[in-house]
C-alpha cells in the first residue's frame, strides 16, 4: 500500500509540474478533464483501445498520450507493472488528482456558475 502511495505521489508530481489540463477554471470542467484524460491514459498504459470518435475525444487523447509518454520516460518501474496493478495505480492517481484539484481545492472560483 505504501508503495502504491509513493508511486501515485510521483505521478501526481509529474502532472502538477508538467501539465495544465487539470487546472481548468471551473469544477465541472476539471471533473470532465480528469475523468477523460486519466481514463484514456489508463487505456493507453494497458494497451486497450481508446475511443477517438469526437474532436473532444481526440483532444483528451492528445493530452493523455503526452502524459503516458512522460510517465514512461521517467518512471521505469511502470514497465514492470501488471495491467491490474496499473489500473489500481491510475485509480489511486485519479482520486488524488480529483482531491487536489476539485474536492479539496481552496479555489473559491471553482463553483462560479459562469465563465
Amino acid at each position, binding site marked *: 500500500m505504501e508503495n502504491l502511495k509513493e508511486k501515485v505521489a510521483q505521478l501526481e508530481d509529474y502532472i502538477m509540474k508538467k501539465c495544465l489540463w487539470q487546472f481548468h477554471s471551473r469544477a465541472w470542467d476539471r471533473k470532465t478533464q480528469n475523468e477523460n484524460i486519466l481514463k484514456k491514459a489508463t487505456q493507453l498504459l494497458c494497451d486497450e483501445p481508446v475511443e477517438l470518435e469526437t474532436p473532444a475525444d481526440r483532444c483528451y487523447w*492528445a*493530452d493523455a498520450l503526452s502524459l503516458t509518454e512522460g510517465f514512461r520516460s521517467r518512471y521505469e518501474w511502470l514497465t514492470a507493472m501488471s495491467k491490474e496493478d496499473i489500473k489500481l495505480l491510475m485509480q489511486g492517481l485519479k482520486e488524488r488528482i480529483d482531491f*487536489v*484539484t476539485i474536492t479539496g481545492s481552496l*479555489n473559491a472560483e471553482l463553483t462560479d456558475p459562469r465563465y
Partner: protein
Amino acid sequence: MPYHEFECSKCIPERKKHAVVKGPGEDLTHALPLGYLNTIPGSISERGCAYCGAKHVIGTPMKDVIHLSHGPVGCTYDTWQTKRYTSDNDNFQLKYTFASDVKEKHIVFGAEKVLKQNIIEAFKAFPEIKRMTIYQTCATALIGDDVDAIADEVMEEMPDVDIFVCNSPGFAGPSQSGGHHKINIAWIKKKVGTVEPKITGDYVINYVGEYNIQGDQEVMIDYFNRMGVQVLSTFTGNGSYDDLRAMHGAHLNVLECARSAEYICNELKVKYGIPRLDIEGFGFEPLSASLRKIGLFFGIEDRAQTIIDEETARWKPELDWYKERLKGKKVCLWPGGSKLWHWANVLHEEMGVDIVSVYTKFGHQGDMEKGIARCEVGALAFDDPNELEGLEAMMTLKPDIIFTGKRPGEVAKKIRVPYLNAHAYHNGPYKGYEGWVRFARDIYNAIYSPIHQLSNLDISNDEISIGTGFQTAKMLSDVNLSDEVVSSATLRQYTGKYDSVSDLRKKTYPEFKK
C-alpha cells in the same frame, strides 16, 4: 503551507491570507492565497484597471483596427506603447492611439456628440482602416453615455465600417483581469459568427491568448505553418479583426495565456463544440510537448516531430551554455498573471535556476494553484503585492534577479537587484526554441553584467580597489566552472540574429497533401 505575514503589512492584517510559503509534504489543499479581490485599502497595489486590461492587454494587439478610448486623454496615453505587441502591418496599432478627449464640459453636458465626431474623424484620417474598437472609461461610463447607440449610428451612416464596443470602464473589476473577462465575453457575444470563415487548410486552429510580444506570435505561427496547420485567427496579437469574427470555424482552440483568454475558449467550446487544448510556447520541453499534441490531434504528429528535432538540435547547445552558468541562481518570478505558471518549472529544469518566490499582480486563485504546483518547496507565493512587500521579500530572499514589470523592476534596481521585463521582454521574442535561448541570454547578461559589481559598492564605506578595473560578464560567470565546461566544443553562446522575426515574414511554406 503556512500563510506568510510580511513585517511591513502587519498593519493590514487582511494581507496575511494573500501569501503562503510552499512547505515540505504539503499540497494546494493546505493553503492557497486569496486572489482576484479588491485591493485592501492601505495597500499600494501594482495593478492596472479593468479598462487597461481590456484595451491594453487584449484589444489593442489587434492590428488592423482604430482603437479609440472614450474618455479623457490620460486613460489612453497611460495605456499606450508600454507593451511591445508588434504586428506585420508596420505596427499600426502601436504607432497610433485615439481618444475622444473628454473634458469637464462633456461630463456636464454629455460626451456622445464628441464621440461621434471623433469616430468619423478617425476613420477619415485613416481611410484604409475600416474597423474600430471603442473602449469605455470610468468618466464616460459614470455619466451614462450610450456608446453602442453611437456606434450603430455611425455604422448606418458608413456601411463599410464595423465597430466593436467594449464596455469595461476602469472600475469594472478588482484589476485588469476584470477587463480581460469583459472583452472576452463581449467579443464572443457581439462579433464571433458575424463573418464567414475562410478555410484554406485541412487542419484549422484559433491561436488564443497570444499577444505577439516582440514577435512571439510570428515565431509560433512559423511552426504551425511548417506543420501545415491553418491559423484562422489569433486572439489577439498580430490578429486581424475580421479573422477574429470567424473564430467559430476552427477545429481546435489552442490556448496559451489561460488567465486572459480562457473565457472565450470555454464559451467557444460550449457554443460551437470546439475543444480547448492548453499549450505552452516557452521552454524546449513544454513547447515540444505542445507541438506534438497539436500534431496528434490532427494525426500529423510526424510533422511536429520534424520541427522538434530540427529546432532542438539547432538551439539546445546554446541553451545549455547558459544553463551551466545560471545553475543555482535565485529568481523571484513576479509577472502579471500567467507567466508564474508558464515559467516556474521550466526555468528550473532547463536553465537550472531556483524560483524562490512567485507573485501575481492580477491572477486568480487558479493561477496560484498552477504556479505553486510548479515551483519547488520553500518558495514564497503572494497575490496583489505592494511595493513594501516586494522590497521586504527581496531583502530576505536575496534573489540574483527578478522577472517583473517596469514599475517594480525599477524599484528592484534601486536595491541593486537586476530585473528583466517579464511583460514586454528585454530582447525578445522569448517564445520558441530560439526565443528561449534569447531569454537565457538576457538573464545571463543581467546577472553577470559587471555594472552590478560596481553598483554594489558603497563608495562612502567600502574599500575601493583601483588595481582590478577590467571585468567582463564571462570573467565573472566562468570563474567557478570546470575546464570541461569552459572549453566545451559543443556548448556555445547565442548565435542568432539581433532581429529574429523579420525574416519569418518573408518565408514560404510547403504545401502538404491531404
